[in-house]
C-alpha cells in the first residue's frame, strides 16, 4: 500500500486528520515516536533531536554540521519505521526525508490563520495576541528550517500531491479524500519503489552508524550495493574501511560495499 506524509502548520487540525486517516486505513500513525526511536537507538537526548528538526541552523551550525548530524539520526529512525509501508507520518519534513519514493503520498494541510489562533487560544487558554505571535513564530521557524537546509519553501504547493485547505472542507472530508487518493494505483508500492525505500533506509542507517563513530561520510545504496564516500585519506580512510567491512555482517541487506575517498588531487595546467 502507501506511505502517507502529512505536512501541517500547528493547530491546523493536521494531527487529528492523520490519526483518522490511519484509523480508516488501518495504518500505523507516527510522529513523536520517531524522535523517541532515534534518541534510543543513537543515545541522543530527545531535546537535541527536537531542536534539530524544528529550529533553523545558526550560521555556526551550518559550518559545524551541528544540526545535520541529528537530522541524520532522525532520518535513519524515520526510514527504518516507514520502510515496512502502511504508515501515516505527520511529523516534520516527511516529504523531504522520504523524497524520491514513488509510493509516497505527500499531503499538506493548511487552514485559516484566525482559526488556528482560535484553536490555540482554546487549547492553551492564552490571549489572542500571544496565540498569534506563537503561531507566526512557529511558521517562520519551520519555513526557515526547510529553506536553510533543503532550499525549498514548505508553503510551495508543488512539493505535495495534495494540498487541503480546512475551512469549507471539514476534517472528515479531508480524511475521505486522503484515503481515496491513497488507494490510487500510483501510490501502491511496486517492487522497484519498495527497493528504493529499502535502499534509502539502508543508506540512512549506515550513515547514522558511521556518524555515531565520528566518520563524516555520504552514503548511497542501489539494490543493496552501497557506496560510502568520505573526505578522508591515509589512516582515517583505513579505519573507515575496517569499520565498513564490519558493517557488512552487522547490517542486513548489504550486497556489496565500496568505500571511496573523495579527497581530490588538484592538477596544474602545464
Amino acid at each position, binding site marked *: 500500500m502507501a506511505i502517507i506524509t502529512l505536512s501541517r502548520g500547528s493547530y491546523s487540525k493536521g494531527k487529528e486528520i492523520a490519526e483518522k486517516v490511519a484509523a480508516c486505513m488501518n495504518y500505523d500513525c507516527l510522529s513523536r515516536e520517531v524522535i523517541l526511536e532515534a534518541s534510543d537507538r543513537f543515545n541522543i537526548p530527545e531535546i537535541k533531536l527536537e531542536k534539530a528538526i524544528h529550529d533553523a541552523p545558526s550560521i555556526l551550525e551550518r559550518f559545524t554540521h551541528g544540526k545535520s548530524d541529528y537530522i541524520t539520526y532522525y532520518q535513519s529512525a524515520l526510514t527504518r519505521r516507514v520502510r515496512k509501508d502502511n504508515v501515516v507520518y505527520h511529523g516534520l519534513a516527511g516529504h523531504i526525508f522520504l523524497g524520491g519514493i514513488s509510493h509516497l503520498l505527500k499531503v499538506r494541510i493548511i487552514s485559516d490563520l484566525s482559526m488556528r489562533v482560535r484553536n490555540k487560544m482554546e487549547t492553551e487558554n492564552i490571549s489572542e495576541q500571544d496565540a498569534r505571535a506563537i503561531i507566526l513564530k512557529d511558521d517562520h521557524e519551520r519555513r526557515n528550517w526547510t529553506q536553510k537546509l533543503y532550499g525549498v519553501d514548505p508553503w510551495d504547493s508543488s512539493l505535495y500531491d495534495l494540498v487541503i485547505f480546512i475551512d469549507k472542507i471539514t476534517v472528515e472530508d479531508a480524511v475521505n479524500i486522503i484515503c481515496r487518493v491513497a488507494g490510487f494505483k500510483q501510490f501502491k508500492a511496486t517492487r522497484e519503489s519498495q527497493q528504493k525505500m529499502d535502499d534509502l533506509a539502508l543508506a540512512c542507517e549506515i550513515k547514522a552508524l558511521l556518524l555515531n563513530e565520528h566518520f563524516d561520510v555520504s552514503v548511497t545504496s542501489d539494490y543493496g550495493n552501497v557506496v560510502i564516500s568520505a573526505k578522508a585519506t591515509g589512516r582515517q580512510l583505513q579505519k573507515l574501511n575496517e569499520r565498513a567491512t564490519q558493517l557488512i555482517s552487522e547490517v542486513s541487506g548489504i550486497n*556489496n560495499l*565500496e568505500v571511496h575517498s573523495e579527497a581530490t588531487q588538484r592538477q596544474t595546467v602545464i
Partner: protein
Amino acid sequence: MQPLTTDMILVMLMIGIAVFLFIVEWVRVDVVAIIMMVVLPLLHLVSPSEAFIGLSSNAVVSIIAVIIIGAGLDKTGLINSLVSPIVKIAGQSESRIIIGFSVAIAFISSFMQNIGAAALFLPALQRVGKSLKIPLSKLLMPIGFSCILGGTITLVGSSPLILLNDLMAPFKLKPFGMFDVTPLGMLLLASGILCFIFLGRFILPQGGGKEDQEKAADHKLDPIREIGEIYELRTSDDFTDYRDPIHIEDLKRRYLVNIVAVTTPPDSRIFSPVSDTVVRSGIDMLVCGRGKDVQRMAAEEGMRVKDQVEAFKNDMASQAPVTVEAVVAPRSQFEGKTLDRINFQERFRISPMAIYRQGEVYRAEIGNMILRVGDAILIHGPVKRLQALQSEGGLLFTTALDTESLRPEKAILAAFWGAVALSMMMIFNIQLSVSLMTGALGMILTRVLTIDEAYQSVDWRTIFLLAGLIPLGMATEKTGAAAWIAQTVLSMLGPVSPIVLLSIIGLLATAFSLVISNVGATVLLVPLVINMAIAANADPRMAALVVGMATSNSFILPTHQVNALYMGPGHYRSIDFMKAGTLISVVFLVALIGGIYLFYGI
C-alpha cells in the same frame, strides 16, 4: 631602499589574489591569468597594449609551435617505432627497460610538452608491462618522473624554460640558448633515473616478499581479476512468468555483473546487448562478474550457472570480446562528464565495468562518476566497437586496436622539419619562436598533419595561462614591487653567499610549484629573484635559471599533469608519490645547485 608606492601595493595585492586563487581554485588557473590580463590595465598598472603583449610574445608563439610539432610526431606513430628497439636492447631486465624508456621519454619531452610525451608513451608502456610481466606501478612512476625531468634538457622542454628569456628581457640579461641548459638537465635526469634503479625497491610501491610482489603484479596486470570472470548462465523456461520484465540494465545494477552476450531464439547471439534488452525465458547469457555476485543473481532470479561456456564457445574464439583498460587522456572530451551523460554504453555498445582512481576500484554506480584525467576505465566489448570508441579520441588504450589513423610514412618528414627548426636555432641563431613555427608550418605544408589538426592540438588553457601572467610579471618589475620585495627579503636574511641564495631560491620555486601552477611560480619569482641576485652580488641569470628548472621539481604531490595521468593506470596512491617524490625532489635540488656550481662556476 625605494619607498613603497600605491602602485607597488596594488601589484602585491594582485599577486596575493592570484596566488590565493591558484590555491583555492575557485576559478581555473587560466581564468585567473585572464583576470590579471584584464584587471592590471584597469588599475593602470600596465598599459592596455602591454596587457595583451603576452599573446604575441616569443614564449607563447614558441609554445604553440612546440604543441603543433608534438602533435605532428604523434600522428606519425614515431613512439610506436621507438618501442621495439628499446625492448630489444633492454631484453627482459626491468632496470634496463626503465632506463631505456626513461631516456626515450626524456628525449621526446625535451622537445615537446611533458604531458603530451607522457600520453604518447602510456599505451606503449602498458603493453610492454603486460608482455614482460612488469607491474605498471614499477614502470610508470620512474618513467613519468623522467618525462618531467626531460623537460629541463632544452629550453623548449617545459613552459617555465620557454618563458625564461622573455622574463629576463626587461633586465637586459643575455638570453639562454636552446641547449645552454642541457648539461644541467642531463645531470638531473641521470640522478633521477639512478635513484630509481638503486633505490626503486625502497621507494616504489610493492609488497614485502617475492610472493606478494608476484601477487601484486598479477593483480595489476590482469584487470579481469578485479571485475570477476566469465560465466555462462541459462534462464529457466518460466523466467518471464509472473513477474515484471527484467532488463539487462536491472541485472547490472542489482548484482554488479556485466551481461556480455545473450542468445535470442531461434539461434542468434547478441554481443553487448543494449541496456533495455528484456531477458527472456530459456536463453543463454554470457556474463562477466565476481563469483559470489553471479551465484547470488542465479539464485535470486532463477538461473542456472553452467560449469563451462557452451553456447558461446565458438564466438569466444572468433568474435573475441575483450577487456581493455582505457585511460582518460589530458584534454579529453570525456573529462568532467559522467558515463551516463556521454551515453557511453548505448552509444558505443560496450560495457564499462569498473573505474580505477587514485588506487581505488569503483564498481557500483560508475555511471554517475565525473571522469577525471588519469581515470582508468575497464571496458568490455567486441574489438570493432572498441575501435569505434578509440577513433573518437580522448582515451588512451592499453591494447593495440590498430585503428589510429597514423601516418608512419610521414615520420621522415616530421623528423626533417624538426631538424630544420633545430638548425635554424643553433646554426643560424634565428629566434626560438620563428624557428619552431617554421618547423610546425613545414609539417602542415608537407601534410604530416592538417591545419585543422594543428589548431585542435593547441591547448588554449596553456596559451592564456602564459599570456595572462606575463603582464603580471611585467607590472611587478615596472612598478618596482619586485625590487622592493627583493630588498626587504635580503635585509631580513642578512648577507648570504650566492650558493646559499640559489639554494633558497630553488627551495622557494619548488614549494611554489607544488601549490600553484609552474608557469605562475615562474612569472612571479623570476623578476623577484633577479632583483635579489643583483642586490646580493650573485649572477641574476643563474637565479632565473634556478627558478626555471626548480619549477619542474614537482614530484611530491600528484599535482603535475604527468603524475595525475599516470596515477590511475599505475594504481598509485598519494602516499606513493610522497615517498618517492620526496627523495627525488631532494636529489633534484642537490643536483641542480651542484650542477650550477660545476658547469657555471658559481
